[in-house]
């Protein structure tokens, strides 16, 4: 079984400050992990993914995420937030040992960046 949790419904940060959006996961084996962003009235856009190797993954628009196996976490980070980063962010996980190609998505975290 695979599941993912995004413990914060909303994250508020001032423009220019670092941001973190949290994600924890649960899988039977090893995980594939993903982050997506959704702007209003749009579909989800792929940001980055962790497959194997380096625990720090760099993605689009200056975002990065750190895989931490001991804490079963995959938090999304950005050193300096922009107002235009305000959106809904989804974490997703797929168990490498699972028989399905379909990831499980979290409930989403609304990021609000204040000017």
């Amino acid at each position, binding site marked *: 079984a695979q599941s993912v949790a995004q413990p914060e419904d909303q994250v508020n940060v001032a423009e220019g400050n670092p941001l973190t959006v949290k994600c924890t996961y649960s899988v039977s084996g090893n995980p594939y992990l993903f982050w997506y962003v959704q702007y209003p*009235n749009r*579909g989800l856009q792929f940001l980055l993914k962790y497959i194997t190797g380096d625990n720090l993954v760099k993605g689009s628009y200056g975002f990065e995420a750190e895989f931490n196996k001991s804490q079963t976490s995959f938090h999304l980070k950005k050193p300096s937030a922009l107002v235009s980063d305000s959106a809904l962010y989804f974490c997703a996980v797929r168990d490498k040992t699972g028989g399905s190609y379909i990831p499980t998505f979290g409930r989403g975290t609304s990021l609000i960046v204040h000017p």
Partner: protein
Amino acid sequence: EADIYQTPRYLVIGTGKKITLECSQTMGHDKMYWYQQDPGMELHLIHYSYGVNSTEKGDLSSESTVSRIRTEHFPLTLESARPSHTSQYLCASSEFSGGEETQYFGPGTRLLVL
């Protein structure tokens, strides 16, 4: 931006009408998916397909049906729309790249059933 298209983008329709939501992708992906998402909420998988003539139901029980006659086309049909079907419907396709399947989403269809 991924080359995956959904039409219509917005639809207001009366109860009992039959509707078809269109989804097309030009990337040649074998796997395609339909998700239902209430505004600002989590995604629920309602249908998926691993290739032509392959369709499966997802985690969320749905009164909709899908077909996959061509690789690029994955329409979703509601035979009789109800107000409970009001939601956003997201289509996605996926490719195997960088060691894993990665999903790419269309812009969504926002449906309102009166």
